[in-house]
């Protein structure tokens, strides 16, 4: 059994992630956020559980989906929201927006706008870690659809061949944009793919934050001890569209409703209440404090300046 405080933290982070994602959807629909919004509502357990298995100095490559991974790795919500707004106070100062939230010090290496870029970048981070003799790992998030890219196979082969400390976490939310995984992936479980490269792998319930945490912890330990890469497939479901504006003609309302019944936050809440760790009172406190944090982030972003046009050439080149 995990430490009660730690279990509460997992729950709290899922709540924070849910409210942050919901707010960003709301702001997108209100025209406050210009970029594409790819929410991860309903998929919190995967991102929060996996990030909780990392050390502060480990590297992490997020996906475009949701904001929970960058938040869980330690980037303040204020900066995340400023990036959503394209303000100068964000992590990328208005250059990469909602998609490229990053922090070198926290090991958040950024996002590849072309899906599949994550694998090659993670491989390179693994090479650096090994060459520099560090004991970090690099965790790469990606979706079920992205496991079809050629870079997936090139990188898994390299990571296995050179025993690189790379942890691959597949957020299988059943859809690659509009296409169901069964119509895009020939192998059934995606966790079967890494076996072709001799990479240990497991599939977990991606809506069970503790199960994800335990599986990814095992993966991290494996990679950190020099045993090479490890693969975790977390099975979950995308409640909302690929992006806000997705017409959703490819699936039924019933399918979505069935999955909403399996809400990872409600599930953890019930578990914590049964175990006497959470009660109505501190649950309300958790939600209220997360709401305040999100509101504070929106206020920060609203008050922040847009970048000056004088900065347009800034950071094109390193001096």
């Amino acid at each position: 059994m995990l430490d009660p405080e730690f279990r509460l933290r997992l729950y709290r982070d899922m709540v924070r992630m849910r409210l942050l994602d919901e707010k960003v959807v709301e702001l997108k629909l209100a025209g406050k956020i210009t970029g594409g919004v790819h929410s991860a509502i309903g998929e919190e357990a995967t991102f929060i559980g996996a990030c909780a298995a990392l050390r502060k100095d480990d590297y992490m490559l997020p996906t475009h989906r949701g904001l929970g991974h960058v938040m869980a790795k330690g980037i303040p919500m204020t900066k995340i929201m400023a990036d959503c707004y394209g303000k100068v106070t964000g992590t990328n100062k208005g250059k990469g927006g909602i998609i490229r939230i990053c922090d070198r010090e926290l090991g958040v290496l950024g996002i590849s706008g072309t899906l599949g870029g994550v694998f090659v970048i993670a491989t390179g981070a693994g090479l650096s870690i090994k060459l520099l003799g560090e004991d970090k790992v690099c965790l790469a998030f990606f979706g079920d659809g992205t496991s079809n890219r050629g870079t997936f196979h090139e990188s898994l082969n390299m990571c296995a061949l050179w025993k690189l400390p790379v942890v691959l976490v597949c957020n299988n939310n059943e859809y690659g944009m509009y296409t169901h995984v069964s119509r895009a992936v020939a192998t059934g479980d995606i966790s079967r793919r890494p076996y072709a490269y001799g990479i240990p792998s497991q599939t977990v319930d991606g809506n069970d934050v503790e199960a994800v945490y335990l599986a990814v912890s095992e993966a991290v330990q494996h990679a950190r001890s020099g045993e090479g890469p490890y693969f975790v497939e977390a099975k979950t479901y995308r409640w909302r569209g690929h992006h806000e504006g997705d017409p959703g003609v490819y699936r039924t309302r019933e399918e979505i409703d069935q999955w909403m019944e399996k809400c990872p936050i409600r599930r953890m809440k019930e578990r914590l209440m049964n175990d006497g760790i959470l009660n109505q009172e501190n649950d309300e406190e958790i939600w209220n404090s997360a709401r305040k944090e999100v509101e504070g982030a929106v206020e920060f972003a609203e008050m922040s300046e847009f970048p000056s046009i004088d900065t347009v050439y800034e950071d094109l080149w390193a001096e």
Partner: protein
Amino acid sequence: MPEITFVQALRDALYEEMRGDDKIFIMGEDVGLGEGAFGVTRGLMREFGSERVKDAPISEAAIVGAGVGAAMTGTRPVVEIMFGDFLSVAFDEVYNKAAKWRYGHGGQFRIPMVIRSAFGHRAGNSMEHSQCPEAVFMHSPGIKIVAPSTPYDAKGLLKSAIRDDNPVLFFEHKQLYRIKGEVPEEEYTLPIGVADVKRKGTDVTIVAWSLMVHKALEAADVLAGEGINAEVVDLRTIAPLDKEAVLNSVASTHRLVIVEEPNKTGGVGGEIAAIVAEEGFELLDAPIMRVASLDVPIPYSRVLEEYVLPSVERIIDAVKTICTY
């Protein structure tokens, strides 16, 4: 000054830089035990070991992409893509990842990497082993592109490329690997982004880079015998382009011929012509001419290949055309 080959100059640059900085590593297909398809990395694995001179699987996207990932996390990769044509397999990794990662992430990361690649035609290599793709990558802000023509330039520029905190695409012409030239024994580097006048002249400016510099110099010798005094400007760097050097030369000769090895449409030559038209129109006494390959894939047959590629004769014809304009 001792004379060494182009390939030796490159190898010396790699040796010297790797000795001075243990964060530098080499990765590419057959660069270690196989010593490189063109022999550039000969002896390096013996000297630095297989962790720093890594034989990679046939996975160009991962070779370049992992280079980017390594560069942003504290090492300084020098990756090799065996043929310039194969960069098409790693297009995203060069065009988007290497070139744009820093800017898109608000300058948080440095990408100190070099992508070395052998480019250009060599008898019978045909369409997917002969190309010069510099124009394609010039279109992506954020990556430097170097294409030297002499052993001296090759060594000084490769050392600078390795020390640069930005990604550098470094093109080595297959037909230049065996040429010899004077290279000092003492340490030196050359600045990226600075062209070099390889021959002074007064009547016409010929701009070229890599192998085409040698064709331009041959043409200039012939033209000198006919009373036309050509200046040959070797760009050395495609991006950032030294437009001042081009404009300065045109300011004294008032005529411009651009010689480039790949096909004409959408090329670097068109960009140079546009710059001179925009910023140096008053300097010109005649239209700008481009000498380039014909707009077809490079064919295999010797007869067709020779006909498609720019020749000394075509350069001479172009110069004469604008000198009698």
